[in-house]
């Protein structure tokens, strides 16, 4: 059996920073699909992630995952373009709770703050709050099996860790 992947402290810290997050899966019909995610929580042991996304926005991705698709998460820091991609063979839904909603709101605020600093304008905060509400959150848990450096450039796709 492969050794479980444990994220480095730096990777875990990166995932708690201001991030643009997108989650991908592949539907039963073979079509890839993507949805913006709105929060991630790294477990204390750095082996699992709990990813938060809207049920309505992520419908196609959630259906694909329910049907057994592998999952991929791309998280990028807008100010530096530093990007990680984390993949796993599956993800499971877990019940959402108040802590998830708090975490999502914190992630969206951090993302908004970063974009405002980068000159996207003051309207970005209200726009992101409107499109990323916390009232229909779904929580997905998965254990990353491979981590890629996805920072744009010729080295994008380099494997950083593998289970």
């Amino acid at each position, binding site marked *: 059996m492969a050794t479980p992947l444990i994220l480095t402290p730096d990777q875990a810290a990166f995932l708690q920073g201001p991030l643009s997050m997108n989650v991908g*899966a592949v539907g039963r019909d073979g079509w890839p*699909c*993507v949805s*913006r995610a709105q929060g991630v929580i790294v477990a204390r042991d750095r082996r699992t992630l709990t990813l938060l996304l809207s049920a309505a926005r992520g419908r196609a991705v959630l259906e694909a995952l329910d049907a057994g698709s592998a999952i991929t998460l791309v998280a990028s820091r807008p100010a530096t373009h530093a990007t990680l*991609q984390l993949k796993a063979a599956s993800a499971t839904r877990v019940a959402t709770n108040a802590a998830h909603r708090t975490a999502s709101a914190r992630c969206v605020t951090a993302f908004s703050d970063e974009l405002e600093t980068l000159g996207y304008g003051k309207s970005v905060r209200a*726009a*992101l709050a409107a499109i990323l509400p916390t009232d229909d959150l779904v929580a997905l848990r998965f254990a990353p099996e491979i981590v890629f450096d996805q920072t744009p*450039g010729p080295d994008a796709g380099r494997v950083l860790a593998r289970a």
Partner: protein
Amino acid sequence: MKISLESLRPCLDGAIPAVVATAAPDGTPNVAYASQVHYVDPEHVALSFQFFSKTRENVLAHPYAQVQVIEPGSFRHFRLKVHYLRTETSGPLFEYMKAQLAGIAERTGMAKVFALRGADIYRVLDIENADPRQQPAPPPPDALLKLRRTLDHLGACDDLAQLADRALAALAHGFGIRHALLAMLDETGGTLYTLASLGYPASGVGAEVALGEGLIGVAARERIPVRINHHTSEYTYHAALCVAAPSSPRIPLPVLANPHSQIAVPLTHGQRLVGVLYAESEQNAFFSHADEDALVVYGRHLAALVVQLAALPDDTEPALAAPPPQPSGPALAVRYFVHDHSVFIDNDYLIKGVAGSILWALLNDYAQSGRRDFCNRELRRDPRLPLPDFGDNLETRLILLQRRLAERCPQIALEKTGRGRFRLELARPLHLDSI
């Protein structure tokens, strides 16, 4: 309601990064940032291919992808189901994307990293609005109205010189453009020369751009509009000027050192390229997709006017003019270099090429016979001038010459005495020397 790809054009200007989801043959998903999602036509987009990435590996094996783009202002997300068709590695679309990518790369700090290897063309099969309850971004200012205001200001023009100046001034009224120039294709078809400019400390009249050089040269060579919404050092002309050989006389292009938005639109009449209209701004994202559409229409209108005005017959007699002043004072040393038709006056470079040979012919006629009055029809047939069949090249070259003289050597002037007629006026005697 079906969403049209045209309505998403504001999402396809590189303002907010897009992502593309693909699937490996074993069904593993991949999501990656796409530097550039370019609007091709109502059914196709093109993604930039810069590196041999997982995205590319996946679509070559399984050509289905989903692209997520974001509307600036509202942050509404749209998801496009796309089918990869082919990759183009040269031609107009490739060149346009290459220029735009240079702007995107500079903005994202990737200027030394990004280079376009190909334009991957995808058919768009379906578009989904992921935020149907979110209000759309306010529409951009109506470009059709801007075009109409511009044309109202352009008005009726009697000659090419007036058209060249008004064509640029009208842009300020219609589009709020403060910096622009008009470059005409020369008779060789390999170079453009500046005929008029707007909003620069020096007019730059006579400054040349080679076909394919910078944004103006690319627009001319490919006969496409090219628009960059961000600052890029790759498509500025200042870098090129710095490496120009100091021994070869070159009039500097008057353009901004650090434009943040640029657009170059070819002036075409039928199959013929007449020149290029170039405009720029110190603001990011100054020109929208709709502005590009409107300026393309304006460019075609200007090209038709250039051709039409050049075809008008010359007046048969010159208008009566006051007697010209008699040359007095020390002689101006006029030196002509036969190999490139360049003219220097008191060792200062004035002009070269066709305009240089015209001036040399006029000054020699005056020296030999005292002749001052000339008409374009005669010059078109003059075997001393390297002119092709296109009549308007002579017209625009005369305007160029007239303007360079007014700027650099007002002691020699070409005064208009009717349509297609002009008079040589000299305030100083001349000493002619040919090398």
